[in-house]
């Protein structure tokens, strides 16, 4: 019975306040299937799987597990019904040890007249860790001392110890590095071999093409299509996710890497406090997209922060050349029309619990106040203009940013500097964690900035993006420039990686 349905749902709806996360979703997973769940951020993938795993209840609709009604009240109940999930954020408790984390909610398994048999628990935990191929993690270690990757592996162990028939892997925002990846692939293979089922959420479409034998795509909470077997190709997935053909270009199409000779920023011999950047110099020109690439600790993020006056420089200085002014603080930078978009969007760029309008105007209060008074009309005008220009998807400027999707949140972060009238943009990972549709719009916007004569520093961990957008690429290694590469069709990932390591 290879095609027996393991889990299914009919007419699932889920509302969060006025936001409809899922609308009449039907889904089924059969034995031996590895089903990839795709869709842009905010399309409802994680919501759907978390309902399967008992994290939250559906607003309406029915679920069936092996033909019977299924309605788990919590993750432990779901796990007992054979549905286990590895969640996207680390869901481990740092204060207690690995074994206690693995068996959390199920301590009665090791109970003997109300007393916990720790020895048995540790032995069992060690066995599971070995089984999934992570024998290097000790059951008695406190989770707090483990790194992010190992914490995820502890979660995998927690998902696996009851031998689930259905495994949900949610990798929609955070991705595992190599060690965890291999472990997950092995698990998926094993589940498939045992004729069980896997639901896999990942942003890495190539990865899904390799491991899945079925794909379901969600868009705005609605199932918009399925792919099976040979249809599973990245080329088929993209248009399904975005809802239209991504025709023509994604990045800019020209290979003209020239820009004006006019230097706007002159960075002279700067060194960062943490020592990641040493004696670093660079010039930024008007109308230039200057890309920064490198490994995460190469110092490129610090360069951006120092230029904006956010981090201190121990040596050297940053000069705004047109006015021969030194930039020492955020205040200086903003007064010279420099804007900074942080890598850490939710913590540094936006206020989640405030309206789009409040966020958009945060850097523009001095600009819109007349005799110290800011009128609601002036606020609305400036804010609505940015919403229109960025095509931010929202009900109105009064809507709270926390209700927006990742891409639209980032649009709000951009809007803030557009409203302030910035001419120089420092963008640290501007497209991190945002979906293809919005990404394409961002690239268009950045290119438009260039044509308007604005200057852009784009710090990125994604090489294709760097190659696709930059006029000039600065590859950093150990706090210094290891290569400077001009825009050309011949630049490849591999070439740049050589300079990075």
């Amino acid at each position, binding site marked *: 019975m290879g095609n027996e349905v393991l889990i299914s749902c009919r007419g699932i709806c889920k509302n969060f306040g006025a936001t409809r996360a899922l609308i009449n979703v039907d889904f089924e997973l059969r034995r031996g299937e590895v089903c990839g769940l795709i869709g842009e951020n905010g399309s409802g993938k994680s919501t759907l799987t978390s309902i399967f795993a008992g994290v939250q209840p559906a607003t309406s609709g029915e679920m069936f597990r092996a033909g019977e009604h299924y309605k788990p009240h919590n993750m432990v109940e779901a796990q007992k019904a054979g549905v286990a999930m590895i969640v996207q954020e680390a869901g481990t408790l740092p204060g207690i040890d690995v074994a206690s984390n693995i068996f959390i909610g199920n301590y009665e398994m090791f109970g003997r007249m109300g007393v916990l048999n720790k020895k048995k628990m540790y032995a069992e935990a060690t066995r599971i860790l070995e089984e999934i191929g992570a024998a290097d993690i000790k059951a008695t270690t406190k989770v707090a001392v483990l790194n992010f990757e190992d914490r995820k592996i502890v979660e995998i162990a927690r998902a696996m110890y009851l031998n689930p028939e259905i495994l949900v892997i949610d990798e929609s925002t955070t991705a595992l590095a190599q060690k965890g990846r291999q472990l997950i692939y092995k698990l998926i293979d094993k589940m498939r071999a045992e004729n069980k089922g896997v639901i896999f959420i990942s942003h890495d479409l190539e990865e899904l093409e390799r491991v899945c034998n079925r794909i379901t795509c969600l868009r705005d909470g609605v199932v918009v299509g399925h792919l099976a077997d040979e249809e599973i190709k990245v080329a088929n997935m993209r248009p399904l996710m975005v809802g239209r053909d991504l025709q023509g270009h994604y990045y800019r199409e020209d290979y003209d890497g020239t820009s004006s000779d006019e230097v706007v920023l002159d960075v002279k011999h700067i060194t960062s406090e943490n020592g990641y950047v040493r004696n670093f110099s660079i010039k930024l020109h008007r109308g230039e997209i200057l890309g920064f690439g490198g490994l995460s600790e190469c110092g490129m993020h610090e360069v951006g922060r120092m230029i904006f006056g956010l981090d201190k420089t121990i040596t050297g200085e940053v000069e705004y050349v047109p006015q021969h002014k030194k930039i020492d603080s955020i205040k200086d930078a903003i007064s010279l029309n420099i804007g900074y978009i942080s890598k850490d969007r939710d913590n540094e760029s936006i206020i989640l619990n405030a309206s789009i309008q409040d966020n958009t105007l945060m850097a523009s209060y001095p600009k819109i106040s007349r005799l110290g008074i800011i009128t609601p009309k002036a606020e609305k005008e400036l804010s609505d203009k940015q919403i229109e220009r960025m095509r931010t998807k929202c*009900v109105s400027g009064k809507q709270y940013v926390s209700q927006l999707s990742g891409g639209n949140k980032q649009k709000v972060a951009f809007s803030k500097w557009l409203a302030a009238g910035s001419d120089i943009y420092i963008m640290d990972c501007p497209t991190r964690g945002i979906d293809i549709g919005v990404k394409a719009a961002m690239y268009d916007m950045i290119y438009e900035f260039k044509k308007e004569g604005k200057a852009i520093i784009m710090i990125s961990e994604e090489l294709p993006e760097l190659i696709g957008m930059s006029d000039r690429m600065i590859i950093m290694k150990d706090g210094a420039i290891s290569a400077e590469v001009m825009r050309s069709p011949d630049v490849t990932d591999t070439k740049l990686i050589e300079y990075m390591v």
Partner: protein
Amino acid sequence: MDTETVKKNANRTEEEIQEELIRRQKRKETITSILPVVGLVVLVVLFTVLTKGQFIGMDNLKLLVNQCFTMCVIVVGGAFLYSIGGLDMAIGAIMALSATVLTLAFNAGVPFVISFLIGVVVSVACMSVTAFIRNYLKVTPFIASLCMMNICQGLVLTAIASTGRIVFNYSQAAWVDDTVTKIITLVLLIFVGYVLFNYTSIGKSLKAIGGNATAARISGIKVEKMVFIAYAIVGITIAIGGLFTVVRSGVADNTLGTGLNLNVMTAIVLGGFPLTGGANAKFHAPLIGALTVTVLTNGLGLLGQANAMGYAIKGLLFIIVVASTYEKSKGKLIS
């Protein structure tokens, strides 16, 4: 029916559902925002009926103005302080110190207005110390304010050590303790506060800091300066409150301002003002709360329940309001 029509119908219901959800969300927001006002009205009606009209008699209304005055004045400033989050436990003690110094100056022959300004300087200075500790020593404002409370109490006790209390020469400033003066003062303060809070970069910046201080800093808001301003504003209102309190009671001593901290906090919460601050902070909320606290105290007093039941009922109400208006999952009340 052709497929086109079917599709259209399906689409329409989806839109209808969406509209319905937005409507429901708006209704919920409206309820949360008007609940404090409704509560206040219900209390007023209830007490009016129970006291057979005595509650809204002219005498009692005057009494109400006097009772709520200090708290209303202080929560006008409090709105600025609480919009950046963090509790302050030093308000009562600082008011006592400010009023004591003011009285000493006045008794020493300093003109009334100058004495008052000295009082303002004292309370603004004290609040600035808390702001300094918060800004540069990175101590939780709650703890910083506890230290400030003890320092101020100590200073007041030192000042009154020989006599036990300082008598304020009431007859020379009798016009201050007048209902009309108080109403005018309050209306002016509320007007200025309202404009500052809603229509200037000060109010907007403070709410941004309450929402996300890092994002505010990166957007060019001078966080430290704004924190000082918030503390200074509440300092000014504390001094005003202190002046009226000491003129009314005629003496400055260490009992002045007792219970004020908790009353202010209760007012903030009952009004539906988030203690963590941010964009949900509404200027009118603590004022509504202050009125509610006063009406409750006064009404229970008229019914002869001031002490016996008063505290218990306030406590109960506090829990009911907090539990029903705050989104507990988000930990909005105290982060």
